[in-house]
């Protein structure tokens, strides 16, 4: 029985949009990127117990005790007002959970699942927890039929992937821009670690898909798509690609200046990738 603890933003028992099939999804708190287009900004930082949210909670589900936020899950109705007032892009609702807490939840509905996806935040920042969670799933007779996927920004070092790989079925990696300078603009970081991860995962048959977030006029320009396709194409044939349309839902004000891409815009990107010879593009 594992008692490794993780910081969990939320544990969702059914999702149709985090990999193939019906999946249990674990959102791990904390991210090393600060993407302009982040649709889940309350998962970026770890709560510093500033307590701005405590008085705002209409249901008194939050309290400050011994300098730390205490969150009462039972009292919460999920209005998310605390996330709106949080000055640090974090959440007071994050829970410390053990691997056993999570696998206990999954066990209750494992018959309905294709697998488990860890996302976030950036789930690989809590590598010990992640490795332990997936290892526990793979070792449990009731859970080992579940596939384990990670939804990642790809910044984990190769040594980390080497540790995770034996219990990982696949990684879904965002490559957020084609050129390094745009990548830095969008994420605050360069892309060399991401590209290295994608290469390594591909070479070790752990690359489930590479994703491009289509922001019209930003990530879908000719220069960007050329560079993006050039890198992905260099990996070899058959890499599964996914186009995701940028949406305002959940984003911070600085992202709202971009329009949501039209269907036509997504069609154009898809056509462009087809012109490059990619056949494995989904959207």
């Amino acid at each position, binding site marked *: 029985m594992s008692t490794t603890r993780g910081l969990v933003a939320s544990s969702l*028992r*059914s999702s*149709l*949009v985090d990999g*193939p*099939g*019906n999946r249990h999804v674990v959102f791990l708190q904390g991210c090393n990127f600060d993407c302009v287009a982040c649709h889940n900004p309350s998962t970026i930082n770890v709560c510093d117990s500033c307590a701005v949210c405590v008085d705002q909670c209409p249901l008194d589900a939050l309290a400050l005790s011994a300098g730390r936020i205490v969150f009462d899950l039972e009292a919460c109705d999920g209005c998310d007002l605390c996330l709106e007032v949080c000055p640090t892009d974090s959440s007071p609702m994050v829970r410390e959970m053990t691997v056993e807490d999570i696998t206990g939840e999954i066990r209750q*509905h494992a*018959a*309905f*699942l*294709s697998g488990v996806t860890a996302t976030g935040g950036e789930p690989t920042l809590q590598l010990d927890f992640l490795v332990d969670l997936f290892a526990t799933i793979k070792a449990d007779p009731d859970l080992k039929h579940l596939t384990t996927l990670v939804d990642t920004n790809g910044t984990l070092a190769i040594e980390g992937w080497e540790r995770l790989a034996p219990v990982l079925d696949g990684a879904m990696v965002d490559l957020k821009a084609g050129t390094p300078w745009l990548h830095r603009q969008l994420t605050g970081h360069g892309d060399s670690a991401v590209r290295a991860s994608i290469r390594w995962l591909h070479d070790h048959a752990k690359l489930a898909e590479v994703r491009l977030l289509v922001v019209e006029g930003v990530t879908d320009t000719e220069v960007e798509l050329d560079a993006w396709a050039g890198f992905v194409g260099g990996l070899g044939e058959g890499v599964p690609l996914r186009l995701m349309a940028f949406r305002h839902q959940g984003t911070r004000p600085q992202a709202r200046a971009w329009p949501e891409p039209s269907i036509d815009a997504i069609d154009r990107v898809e056509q462009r990738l087809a012109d490059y010879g990619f056949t494995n593009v*989904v*959207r």
Partner: protein
Amino acid sequence: MDDLNEFRQSAYRLVTTPNLSYRQRLHQLALLAEEALPYPKLSPEAADALSTGLVSDLAEGHAPYRPRYLLPDYSVALREGSEYLELEPATGLEDALTNLQILYHNVPSITSYPVYLGDLDALLLPHIGDADDDALDAHLTRFWRFLDRTIPDAFSHANIGPVDNPIARSVLRVDAALAQVVPNLTLKYDPNVTSDELIGLAARSIARVNKPHIANHPMIAADFPEGYGVVSCYNTLPLGGGSHTLVRLDLKESAARASGGIDHYLEKDLPEHAALVFEIMEARIKFLVEESGFYDHHFLVKEGMLHPERFTAMFGIFGMAEAVRILLGGTSRYGHDPEANYLADRIIEVVDRLVDERPLPHCRQGRATLHAQSGIGDDVGVTAGARIATGEEPDVLDHVAAVAGHHSRFTSGISDIFALEGSARANPQAIVDVTRGAFKAGMREMTFNIEGCDLVRVTGYMVKLSDIEKWKREGSRLASTVLGAQSVENWGLLGRMPRVISHEHDPRPRR
């Protein structure tokens, strides 16, 4: 004389209603004539239950001259030919398909259209010879068009599975490509027998056209060793037989008439109300079997496609959601509160036991079978079958947990409809996952409505949303579009998220 005048006026109105087709007018006129005959003799209590809506015979008519549901074993005619229809045994795919078309035309039913089109793969596989997939698709495309254009009744139902085979695959391909209302379609699914490819193909079809419905084959096959078919609104009935009649108890009305507490209701009121249902069923069955002589004369019986001893009678219940709410004093919600779910299970247990204890003449195993009835067009403010109230359904996992425990009791069928978000369209494996989990949890049948499909389930049969608007202007070729339109208005289908409504059909004469 007044009665006759009223009859004439009703008949006149029917023959001049612009948005009823010729066939629809003919059918309604026949029903009007049948209802001019006296009802089989009932006690005053039973007659009162019918007239006040506690019990309903779904307007099957006053003088039943054909069973409500027939599931002929068409394989007999394909193998041996038919003397009455002057058909030789089928010797090839074209022969088999043509003979089926001829047979369908000669099968009676409550709606005048055949409700069971057969287990098409089992029927056709012996005749496919060396036809490749393209040839099968071409044949079945023509056949599918024939069905939709000549059997304008969405209760007509074809079955496939559980074994993977070229016909089942072709049926799924053709059905999804044509996106027709008819036929309705069920895949019999056995997780140990059905291939991943076949259930995967079915899930992709569901993502496009909300068909097929999926039946828990091992569970249902155990109830019907003689074989079974899924017909109409997910009624599971014996192959080579069917159901004489379907009489339903309105649990909402029953609960409203409770004369004491919950225990008193379960021990006294509910059994009394059920006794009225049995009395009406018995009277109808006796008329059908002993007076109309259907089973003595019909060629389907004489030629071995139907066996009188394989006919059951369906004891329907509906309005569970409201009954539970009434009995618990209006606060507890079925599907959400353990107390309400527990009471629903107790009610079903009692009705199941009553069905088990009450002999009925001329019925398979001497008993009726329990059925969760899916409602009719003019049910307003009462939920179909044993479903959770429309629009109040919890997420899929909680939904399954609330209803799976009682599914196995509904021998002649139960349907709960599961709404899934439109993202299932890009991820059909999720449909397979949920189905597998649900069957493991004890569900008898699974039906999905995926948000955003034009072809949607209204209680169980299919309706094209785009047809409903058209019907209001021009009338419909399909009887069920009319019913769907009524349901949409009565239940606010279009205003709701991925939610469905409830009813089986609208059998009443239009006065």
